[in-house]
């Protein structure tokens, strides 16, 4: 690693600490050593968190900080809109980490801060605003209880600033629902690991930012040149062009035909309904304008993967704006056998407005459907009978979860806690890792996803390593992955490189859709250097990613993680589907995990890295 004369090009240069106990603010300069080691975003935020919590910290207590952090790429580089939120998860007890696209991060930097650390708990509902370096706390009592769409409109009117960007919770976060999200730009989400409940526990409705401050970069001319190249190449690639044409939801068709799509809580391999819910279908019916949209107005992106739709349905009313993504179409659709696209669009709107993670919500409802089908749950337990494919059952449960009403209170704790409470064998079909519901990529078919889910530091997430892309042929030749991994050694190598690259990407502020299968990491290293003035290359940024992955692992160790927590649900290991491309397959996790542990130098009991590895990565904290 280059020893930096760190001048903080690419950063606003400071973090805002907001203490809600006494409504005070403190501006803290970025720690230059931490910038050097952990870059920003998820890495830097995890380093802050490491010093602030331990295993006695209740995730919903004032002692658990909510850390929002951008990276040096955020808002400056092509296809780099990302902001990260980090804390201790109320859903898993381990690291909470979730990324959002949209304009929020870009505007946060323009307001004068790279990040915000929110501590304590307000005595009454409040809103934090930052406008050009000036933070303020507003009384948000009149907003409490309101959905995201209405509250967002009211905040913009009250603050008389239509350009303000807001990250906020809906009723689900206020009600401490453990699968709640924080919504930005009304339609993007810090979706995973229950971060909405943490914001709710602080009596914080949201954070609004606005500003016009410019972030200095080291070599602006070079950055413009690199951005131009990235923007022109991205839509010409198969992946970038495919995302531009269909958004992520185009993956429903390939997922169904290729065996990736989860169907009926992962019990079926073929489903005729897939063609009815894919982006290609709903864009034919409900496309708004060109249908293509960037995820936020300040975002520099030539892929435009957001699908803009307008629907006016007699059953579900009007929907205008962002259409559902792949994960949502699968979680609320195929996982629950819902093939009515209008119903999914409506359910997606409900989740955004109420502030619920669509992945976890779809999974926990799918579990309830299966429990009902098997007689573990009765209509009297729920209040009505459940029926696979029924939009009314789906949307009733979504509301009940957000407001913790009736059986919704059980489901609001997530699928692990729900199945533990109900028992009767239902734990066997509760599909989660470390308490985080499994997303929509099939580990029976794409084994690297099985390992990535099992060992992820936040629980099952498809964004802590995108092995599925490599297994589908989007290789990483610059890191020696020049063939689809078929054996244990090449799968392990893919997992390690994907983990570390995703850790770097989440810390830099890049969007993963603008990188993997779109542009190589030599280009990313050059862009990093043009922004920050550093002298990194593809190998040194991989090492930074390594360091961040191990830092997360160390934090999880502090929070009680053991090797036995690195597991994959039995559904993927012991149960195969009978039809389709994945018929007869299970994930050979027992062969893959020991190899991963060996390669990462993790202790087989504690799950923690060796002292040698920590020293090598300068992690002797």
């Amino acid at each position, binding site marked *: 690693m280059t020893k930096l004369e760190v001048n903080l090009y690419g950063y606003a240069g400071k973090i805002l600490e907001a203490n809600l106990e006494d409504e005070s603010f403190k501006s803290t300069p970025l720690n230059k050593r931490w910038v050097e080691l952990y870059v920003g975003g998820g890495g830097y935020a995890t380093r802050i968190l490491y010093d602030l919590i331990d295993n006695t910290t209740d995730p919903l207590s004032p002692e658990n900080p909510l850390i929002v952090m951008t990276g040096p790429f955020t808002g400056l580089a092509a296809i780099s809109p990302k902001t990260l939120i980090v804390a201790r998860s109320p859903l898993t007890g381990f690291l909470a980490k979730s990324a959002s696209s949209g304009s929020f991060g870009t505007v946060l930097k323009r307001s004068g801060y790279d990040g915000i650390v929110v501590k304590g708990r307000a005595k009454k509902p409040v809103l934090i605003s930052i406008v050009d370096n000036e933070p303020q706390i507003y009384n948000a009592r009149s907003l409490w209880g309101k959905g995201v769409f209405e509250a967002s409109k009211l905040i913009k009117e009250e603050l008389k600033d239509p350009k303000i960007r807001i990250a906020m919770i809906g009723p689900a976060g206020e009600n401490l629902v453990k699968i709640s999200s924080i919504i930005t730009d009304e339609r993007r989400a810090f979706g995973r690991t229950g971060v909405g409940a943490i914001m709710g526990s602080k009596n914080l409705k949201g954070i609004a930012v606005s500003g016009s401050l410019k972030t200095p970069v080291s070599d602006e001319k070079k950055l413009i040149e690199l951005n131009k190249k990235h923007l022109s190449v991205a839509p010409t690639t*198969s*992946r970038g*062009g*495919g*995302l531009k044409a269909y958004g992520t939801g185009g993956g429903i068709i*390939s997922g*169904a*035909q290729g065996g990736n799509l989860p169907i009926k809580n992962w019990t079926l391999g073929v489903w005729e309904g897939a063609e009815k819910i894919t982006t*290609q279908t709903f864009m034919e019916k409900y496309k708004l304008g060109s249908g293509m949209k960037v995820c936020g107005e300040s975002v520099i992106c030539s892929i435009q*993967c957001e699908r803009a739709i307008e629907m006016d349905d007699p059953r579900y009313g009007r929907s205008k704006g962002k259409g559902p993504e792949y994960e949502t179409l699968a979680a609320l659709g195929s996982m629950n056998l819902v093939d009515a696209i209008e119903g999914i669009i409506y359910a997606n709107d409900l989740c955004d407005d109420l502030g619920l993670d669509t992945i976890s919500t779809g999974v926990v409802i799918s579990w309830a459907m299966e429990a009902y089908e098997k007689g573990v749950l009765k209509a009297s337990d729920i209040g009505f009978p459940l029926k696979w494919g029924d939009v009314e059952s789906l949307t009733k449960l979504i509301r009940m979860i957000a407001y913790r009403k009736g059986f919704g209170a059980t489901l609001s704790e997530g699928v692990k806690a729900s199945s533990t409470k109900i028992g009767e064998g239902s734990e066997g079909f509760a599909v989660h890792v470390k308490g985080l519901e499994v997303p929509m990529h099939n580990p029976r078919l794409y084994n690297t996803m099985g390992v990535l889910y099992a060992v992820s530091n936040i629980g099952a997430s498809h964004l802590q390593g995108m092995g599925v892309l490599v297994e589908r042929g989007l290789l990483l030749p610059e890191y020696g992955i020049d063939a689809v991994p078929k054996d244990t050694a090449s799968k392990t190598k893919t997992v390690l490189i994907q983990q570390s690259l995703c850790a770097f990407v989440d810390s830099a502020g890049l969007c993963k859709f603008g990188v993997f299968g779109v542009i190589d990491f030599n280009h990313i290293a050059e862009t990093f250097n043009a922004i920050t003035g550093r002298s990194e290359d593809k190998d040194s940024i991989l090492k930074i990613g390594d360091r961040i992955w191990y830092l997360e692992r160390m934090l999880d160790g502090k929070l009680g993680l053991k090797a036995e927590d690195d597991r994959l649900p039995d559904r993927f290991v012991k149960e195969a589907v009978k039809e389709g491309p994945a018929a007869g397959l299970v994930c050979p996790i027992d062969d893959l995990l020991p190899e991963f542990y060996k390669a990462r130098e993790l202790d087989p009991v504690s799950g923690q890295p060796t002292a040698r590895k920590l020293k090598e990565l300068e992690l002797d904290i």
Partner: protein
Amino acid sequence: MSRWGSMKIKVFNPLSEKLGFKEKEVHLVAPIKVKDIEVLSEVRLEDYLISKNKREIITSEAEVSEQDEIWILPIVDGG
């Protein structure tokens, strides 16, 4: 079975724009590897998913025959 069969190829954007068709019937007299299908000769097939009869993902080395249907899909799975 007819001696002269035809196979359907369906392609999606952005490839359909490049090739100038969304669907095409290709006449075959014998099984053929996907990579040898003339209308796909300009396509870097490893960048796409090739689905056969909506049930199976195949490589460009796989053979297809009359009455098969193949879809050339972009790799867009994500989140």
